[in-house]
């Protein structure tokens, strides 16, 4: 292999990395990762799997060597898919920042200022402040919050995901003035969001509020 040219450029059709993944446990559980280029030994670290996947997408999808290999229509499709994947990662990141860490400003990156939130049976609200207030209210009334995003589905300018939230009811929210019950409760639902210019402009949240209120003892069981 002594005759291998030193200035080998990356081959667009073949990439080789040593992938390392490790789990960090702290306030929240998170995966970290690194890749080591097989050709050069160069090592790159990533704070999250989303960041790592974004890097791999960039390496494989946006590499200059592939330009012209796809028809313009295929390229546009690829770009759209890419931005949907980026949007999914952004939604996940901002949701976890807001729900788990209380970093509500993270939502500014994802929601348009004038976005509209449909959340039956509650009245429709508008503006990013509405979602911030809601999460802040929930965070003041619940502790040990766990928020899990299920697999996301994206098509065109729409993304949908199922979620589940578990928490302990240890405080009072402005929207539901009942004393803390100390109960472990869960809220499950499916959310559909409409994206425009890289931000959520409309959200349809369908959650099991009846089951949630039954768990809290606010509404009696049926039947």
């Amino acid at each position, binding site marked *: 292999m002594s005759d291998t040219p030193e200035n080998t450029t990356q081959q667009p059709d073949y990439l080789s990395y040593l992938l390392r993944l490790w789990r960090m446990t702290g306030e929240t559980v998170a995966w970290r990762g690194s890749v080591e280029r097989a050709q050069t030994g160069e090592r790159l670290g990533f704070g999250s799997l989303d960041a790592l996947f974004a890097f791999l997408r960039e390496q494989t999808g946006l590499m200059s060597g592939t330009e012209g290999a796809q028809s313009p229509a295929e390229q546009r499709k690829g770009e759209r898919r890419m931005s949907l994947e980026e949007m999914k990662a952004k939604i996940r990141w901002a949701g976890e920042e807001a729900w788990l860490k209380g970093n509500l400003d993270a939502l500014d990156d994802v929601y348009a200022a004038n976005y509209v939130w449909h959340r039956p049976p509650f009245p429709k609200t508008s503006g990013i402040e509405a979602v911030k207030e809601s999460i802040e209210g929930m965070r003041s009334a619940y502790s040990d919050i766990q928020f899990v995003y299920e697999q996301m*589905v994206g098509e065109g300018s729409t993304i949908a995901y*199922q979620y589940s939230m578990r928490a302990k009811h240890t405080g009072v929210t402005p929207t*539901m003035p009942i004393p803390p019950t100390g109960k472990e409760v869960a809220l499950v639902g*499916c959310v559909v969001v409409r994206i425009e210019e890289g931000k959520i402009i409309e959200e349809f949240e369908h*959650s099991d509020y*009846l089951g949630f209120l039954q768990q809290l003892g606010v509404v009696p069981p049926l*039947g």
Partner: protein
Amino acid sequence: MLIEELKTKIRWANREVWVKGNLDAMDELYHADCVLHSPPLPDVRGLDAVKEHVAGIRSAYSDAQITYAEMLGEGNRIVYRYTWRARHTGQSQTLPIPPTGKEVGMAKCVAVRIVDGQIAEEFEYADYMGFLQQLGVVPPLG
């Protein structure tokens, strides 16, 4: 392309089942051992049990109509939203109250998981809270 075909089948089957009461329209679309999650109701397991569940709900309502919002699919999942409207003219096991004669509506979001071209698992998120408020069973909150 398979996803587009499934979307068409789902639309067709929902109309057959909920509007016309033709429950056998589910046979081709659903796995025999499919699972329906419709919180806060208990899970329903197996196509026969799902049909029975649907028949029970249908017996309490007439003039059912469904109106779709969006339907999207990727990989082995399809998610769609729709509104169901009907008149409450009978009594069902899931909600044992006498018929109110009221026109009621319920917003729903459904997520299905596809295995071998059929629905293996269905998650239905319906606004039961708003629905019971319309029927006067649960008072408005706040």
